[in-house]
């Protein structure tokens, strides 16, 4: 079992349980007695805690007892071959899996104090805090402005110029402002693929999330656009905790701080990116990153 992995970077986290507690196995509701209290100023604070997280689609077990921590204001990459469960794991963080009625999960998944798996957790509120960007750019068939304003309009009562500020700010943050500022009211579907994906990122950050989930955000893009997105992630990490799922190992090594390698629903290894790619502890990890399978 390779789930007994301690993040070496977890110096601040003596109060954190990074190894899963055998007693809590198969428990659906967890009352965490020792909640990690994280201070925003703390550089290495933990944003998301997973303990013994298992997930099923019907009778198929997609995730097997995952325990890991995602650190605040870092880019964490989930890598692994297709079907290893990395996307499933990502989609549990903002409960996108709720749309699949056969999907269910047990274990512990916390964002700060918030129990993400509890049925009492309001997913709408959660998704304001945890934004997601999908594999294929999916702008709404509306204008560029309306796309970015979509989230703020849902959640806040804003005056026109305030809305304009948020849109401009988000588009600047997503590094697409200069390309679209003259045609904010043109249809978003007229943009190129890379611009569309950055628009989707702008749309997500316009809601003001703490965490950004990215589900293979570059796999449908050309190399130039990929580079733009990677640069963007680099800039965004000051403000957001970013989790990225990727097939592309170069991408993971280029832009992530930590990397977790999954195989057949299990977390094989998690470490800082440098160590994973230069000195993997597990043979499977080494085989995968050296291209022997996957």
């Amino acid at each position, binding site marked *: 079992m390779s789930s007994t992995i301690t993040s070496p970077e977890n110096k601040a986290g003596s109060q954190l349980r990074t190894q899963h507690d055998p007693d809590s196995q198969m428990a659906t509701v967890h009352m965490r007695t020792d909640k990690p209290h994280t201070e925003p100023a703390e550089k290495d604070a933990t944003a998301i805690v997973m303990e013994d997280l298992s997930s099923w689609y019907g009778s198929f077990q997609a995730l097997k007892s995952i325990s890991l921590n995602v650190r605040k204001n870092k880019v964490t990459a989930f890598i692994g071959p297709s079907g290893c469960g990395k996307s499933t794991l990502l989609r549990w963080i*903002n409960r*996108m899996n*709720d*749309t699949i*009625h056969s999907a269910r999960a047990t274990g512990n998944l916390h964002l700060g104090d918030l129990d993400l798996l509890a049925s009492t957790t309001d997913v*709408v*509120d*959660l*998704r*304001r805090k945890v*934004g*997601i*960007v*999908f594999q*294929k750019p*999916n*702008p*709404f*068939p*509306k204008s560029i402005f309306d796309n970015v304003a*979509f*989230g703020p309009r*849902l*959640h806040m009562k804003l005056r026109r110029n305030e809305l304009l500020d948020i849109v401009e700010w988000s588009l600047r943050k997503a590094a697409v402002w200069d390309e679209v500022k003259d045609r904010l009211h043109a249809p978003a579907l007229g943009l190129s693929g890379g611009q569309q994906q950055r628009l*989707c990122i702008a*749309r*997500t950050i316009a*809601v003001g999330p703490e965490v950004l989930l990215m589900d293979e955000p570059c796999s449908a893009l050309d190399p130039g656009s990929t580079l733009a997105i990677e640069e963007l992630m680099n800039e965004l990490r000051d403000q957001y905790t970013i989790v990225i799922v990727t097939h592309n190992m170069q991408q993971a090594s280029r832009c992530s701080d930590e990397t977790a390698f999954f195989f057949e629903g299990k977390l094989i290894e998690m470490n800082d990116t440098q160590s994973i790619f230069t000195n993997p502890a597990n043979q499977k990890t080494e085989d995968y990153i050296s291209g022997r399978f996957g």
Partner: protein
Amino acid sequence: MSDIDSQDDSNMSADDAEKPSKDGHIGEQSVSGPGGTPKTSLLEARDPDAFDKPTLITTRSRLAKDFRFRVMCILTACASVLILVFLLGSILGAGIPTLSWTLLTGTPEPEPENAGMWPALMGTLWVCTMCALITLPLGIGTAILIEEFTPRNRIARQVLALIQLNITNLAGVPSVVYGILGLTAFVSMFSLFDNSDNADGPSMEVGAVYYDQFSNVASDPFIDTGDTEAEERYFLFPVETRDAPSTVPKTGMLAYENSEGGLKEVEIIAIDPFADDAPTDADALSRTIDSTSDPGRISEKQWYYLRLPFGRGVVAGALTLMLVILPVIIISTQESLRAVPGTLRAGALGLGATPWQVVWNVTLPSAIPGIMTGSILAMSRAIGETAPILIIAGIVYIRSAPQHLMDDYTVMPLQIYNWTSRPQEEFHNIAAGGIVILLAILLTFNAVAVLIRHRMQNKLN
């Protein structure tokens, strides 16, 4: 073998299906489709020497079979076109000469040359508008429920599956059965509101005012009013309910008179005709009522006049048509909703939209052209639907457009049925004229639907 091959070559460019059937040259047409190209190359590459004789014959007979089948297909396709041409031709031939302004704006008089279908036209307008107002929200709501809300609860999911199954089966119920249901459920309302005092009258009504109507003595030929000439006038006394006892007029009472500027208050004089005390003054005489006469009970109904049970009124017709087209609208809306890519929904959900916000802001705007197309087609079906209306309204002689929601009505197809089922040739001709008008309306509807669909496709590309 070789002659077949040469036919192939000569017909490679023949795209037109009808031309080869006339010439008798049918071989391989160039067919757009995945199978077309490999087949052609296969035939061209065939070397006669490579086959022994039996194979050659089999191939030839197989190709001949293919040829015969193709001819059959084309003939059938032509037949369907011919049927349409014949159908429309025979109707247009009979109908167009009878088209006239009278036919459109007249009332269904018993003489064919004066008959028109204005009341039927207005009846169709009333019934179908009401029907659309009721059906669209219901149908679109049901479709949204089935397509957009997938509950995690197992029982709820089974209920949704049941609703879905139910709708597919409802779509196959003959419309005449809906007519029967409408007759019981809407016209007589399960006899729940039967009025024991007055078998014909409703038991509850809102929006109607009843009057007792008297005429002045001047119009009564049996009363001697001397030489004084007085014009005929009618006076109305409001009464509480439909069943209230008749008003007994007394001198000095105020009555309403129906005049051009609306109801006007007039003071009346009541006389006993046997006492022979009729006033001689012309003005007074024109306001004088025979106090022993029986009034007529008339009513004035507001447009929102409502009664229970509905009776054979516009509302019952609209509700019955709703039953017929509800499954159609639900199914077409479901198809349009399914066509909206799931990534858009996921995108909106990921931004923290609630399921309804996703539907309202993302799914519905994308699906609206499809929904509109489906709804317009469903409404054109409602316009042409005859059997359920015939069951609930029967064939009645209606001379005016409906004035309120409970008014008697007839619809265009029913009027056409009425004229067609009469023995006189002239009525058959005006029925054809009515059909031309009906088809023109339906064709407009269809054209609008096709236009919307076309624009939608352009937008997607």
